């Protein structure tokens, strides 16, 4: 597949100085794009896990009457019963009124009318993330129990955000694809340049009785070493960049970007990018050379 022979002056030519940097640049972009994709993907996954499957059920206070303690309100008890008998709901707990007050603080003021106000009752429920869970059925069952009950599954704003992130992810994927194509194109072009620069040499080898393979192997070997060199440089430059972005992101809102650092598996995946680039380079070089040689008698 490859050969370390150096009948061709491949190591000394200008391309040898050029190709690694180009591949380094490509690998750098690819690694950063892939890392960004990982982080975003993790973020949406976290959100889905942490938020999508949480439901807040709100039971309005019973009008006109002196409020009963939450745990005794019949509507609340009904709602809890409904929730606990719904397949897919794995937990349903009453939110203590003190917490409800805290939630309302921005609206009612710090010394909000504690016991005086008829506060709504809140129930925090969790759905099994694996079970297919039908929010519409649940909603209709709950309103049957008491018409004023509302169910909030936090989907509205989350859906929008996930949509945005998805779009960004798609862009990152597009950039990755583009970089892949650009790398292949670059290797094809540089190999062709190499072929034309060394055309006389190749022709002499050919006329001396060298097999196509003899020549192709040397180009492939060169592409492999240059590709690996460039890939390593690119990865080396990208790693601190990724770490820096992670640091910046984690300095922002933990809720917005829950975990901006990468796992071991993800780092390993990133480390495969330069290897992939070198493999692409090697294969492209081999194919290009073989095709060109096939054109000679």
């Amino acid at each position, binding site marked *: 597949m490859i050969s370390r*022979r150096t*009948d061709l*002056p491949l190591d*000394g030519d200008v391309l040898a100085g050029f190709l690694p940097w180009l591949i380094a640049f490509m690998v750098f972009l690819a690694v950063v794009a892939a890392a960004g994709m990982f982080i975003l993907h993790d973020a949406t996954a976290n959100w889905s896990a942490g938020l999508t499957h949480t439901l807040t059920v709100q039971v309005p206070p019973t009008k006109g009457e002196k409020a009963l303690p939450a745990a005794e309100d019949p509507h609340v008890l009904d709602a809890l019963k409904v929730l606990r008998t719904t397949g897919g709901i794995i937990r349903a707990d009453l939110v203590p009124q003190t917490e409800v007050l805290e939630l309302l603080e921005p609206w009612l003021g710090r010394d909000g009318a504690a016991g005086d106000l008829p506060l709504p009752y809140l129930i925090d429920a969790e759905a099994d993330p694996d079970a297919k869970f039908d929010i519409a059925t649940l909603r209709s069952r709950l309103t049957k129990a008491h018409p004023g009950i509302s169910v909030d599954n936090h989907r509205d704003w989350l859906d929008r955000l996930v949509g945005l992130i998805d779009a960004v992810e798609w862009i990152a994927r597009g950039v990755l694809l583009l970089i892949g194509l650009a790398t292949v194109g670059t290797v094809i072009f540089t190999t062709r340049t190499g072929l034309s620069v060394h055309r*006389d*040499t190749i*022709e*002499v*080898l*050919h*006329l*001396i*009785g*060298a*097999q196509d393979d*003899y020549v192709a192997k040397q180009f492939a070997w060169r592409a492999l070493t240059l590709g690996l060199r460039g890939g390593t440089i690119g990865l080396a430059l990208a790693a601190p960049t990724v770490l820096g972005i992670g640091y910046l992101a984690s300095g922002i809102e933990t809720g917005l970007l829950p975990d901006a650092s990468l796992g071991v598996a993800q780092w390993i995946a990133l480390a495969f990018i330069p290897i992939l680039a070198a493999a692409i380079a090697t294969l492209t070089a081999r194919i290009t050379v073989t095709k060109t040689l096939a054109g000679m*008698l």
Partner: protein
Amino acid sequence: MNFDGSDYVVRFENVGLRYGLGPEVLQDVSFALAPASYHFLIGPSGAGKSSLLRLMYLAMKPSRGLISLFGRDMARTAREDLPGLRRRIGVVFQDYRLLNHLSAFDNVALPLRVAGGRERDIQKHVEELLSWVGLGDHMNASLPTLSGGQQQRVSIARAVITKPQLLLADEPTGNVDDRIALRLMHLFEELNKLGTTIVIATHNESLVKRLGHPRLRLDGGLLLGDPQSRRGRKGKGDEMLDGSRHMEAG
């Protein structure tokens, strides 16, 4: 020596060659070279000498006609078999075609390496030959540091290092003086005695006259009879091919 048609080392029949859409630079060329024969290929500049050699060392296909090498019809030979055939042919190119990034030694060693020779044998052979052509002191010199005549001798050494069955040399003595030219011709004679068929394209008239080998004369793409050579070393293995335009080469 007796042999039938298939025993010719080189056989051309009604070969024509044109480059692209241009005129035919070789027309109806027919000849045959017997094993261990030695010919000069002469003719004015632009007559087609280098083109004829190019066909023989398999750098091009003819536009028409039949070429057979070592008894094999080239039109019917698979591309995979060509490297093997090329290794039996040594070529001195008119413009040397040496590899500039390699030393004189590595240039000469190249055909052996391509053929997969053992490095120990290569060492000895190459050094011996380079000394013989007067480049013992320049063994490891890189190519561009050699003078024109030195490069020419490297190219000759590369062509003969494999003791090829067919040696084709295109103006091999254009950049050396008569003393070295004669020495190189002796090298070719030695090879010839060992059985190598030799064709040398040259303008060096004094050399052609002095050595007196049979001549192939090209002019305007046509192969012409050479009356002098008929008087020369007749019967060294060459034969008239049948057909009116076929001529005796030697």
